[in-house]
């Protein structure tokens, strides 16, 4: 399963950004220009802040964060050692987007087992 295949059945996804554990971008979809144009990388510090704060509360490890803006919804998936960030239109099915967490987990596990 490839990332573009995962998103094929969900209309309205504007951009996808994949970061490593240090917050360095390792993949930008559909194009680097599209992600840069949205300035998705401004999310990086807040994703790390959220993770820190979640660990301070009783919520423990953070899995997903959904932020609803007036123009779009942004979902951050914490799948160690990667962080996936998706920007989508407000009309996109949030449930379908949240369900991608399981696929991301499978992809990450597959990737790591291939490396091993």
């Amino acid at each position, binding site marked *: 399963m490839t990332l573009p295949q995962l998103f094929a059945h969900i209309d309205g996804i504007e951009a996808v950004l994949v970061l490593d554990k240090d917050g360095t971008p390792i993949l930008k979809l559909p194009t680097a220009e599209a992600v840069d144009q949205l300035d998705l990388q401004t*999310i990086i510090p*807040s994703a790390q*802040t959220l993770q820190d*704060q979640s660990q301070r509360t009783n919520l423990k490890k953070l899995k997903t964060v*959904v*932020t*609803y803006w007036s123009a779009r919804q942004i979902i951050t998936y914490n799948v160690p050692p990667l962080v996936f960030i998706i920007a989508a239109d407000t009309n996109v099915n949030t449930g379908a987007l949240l369900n991608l967490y399981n696929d991301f987990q499978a992809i990450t596990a597959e990737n790591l087992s291939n490396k091993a």
Partner: protein
Amino acid sequence: MLKPKALSEVLAQVTNGGIQSTVLLTRDGALLAYSGFEAKDAKIIAAMASSIFAAHQRVRQTPASTLPQNMVGSGDLNMILLDAEEGKMAIASVATQLVCMVAKTSVQLGMLKAKMDALSSYLQEPLRQVSQSNN
């Protein structure tokens, strides 16, 4: 005028079915009213919710006035939903205040959002009037 007892009663109406605590707070993190957890825990939740919301606002609002319409930070931040291993949290902006709900993992995010939407729209007008009278 805000009636603290009435506010707590409204918050108590949604604090059920797996919702552990509902907190109304200012954007600075000061507690206004709460239902569910004890006052000490409510204060901690208020501080965390304010900090999390501000983290988003700060990142995107710094250049907000200059942001092109298409950028991620354009527009208002309405709600944040957090799904963690041992619980869920929703933070929403209501007038000039924030509302935060903490729920068990068994509560579905859709239900949490629906309750938050209902509470936000119920509190929107009274809180807006209070914030206007303060200005």
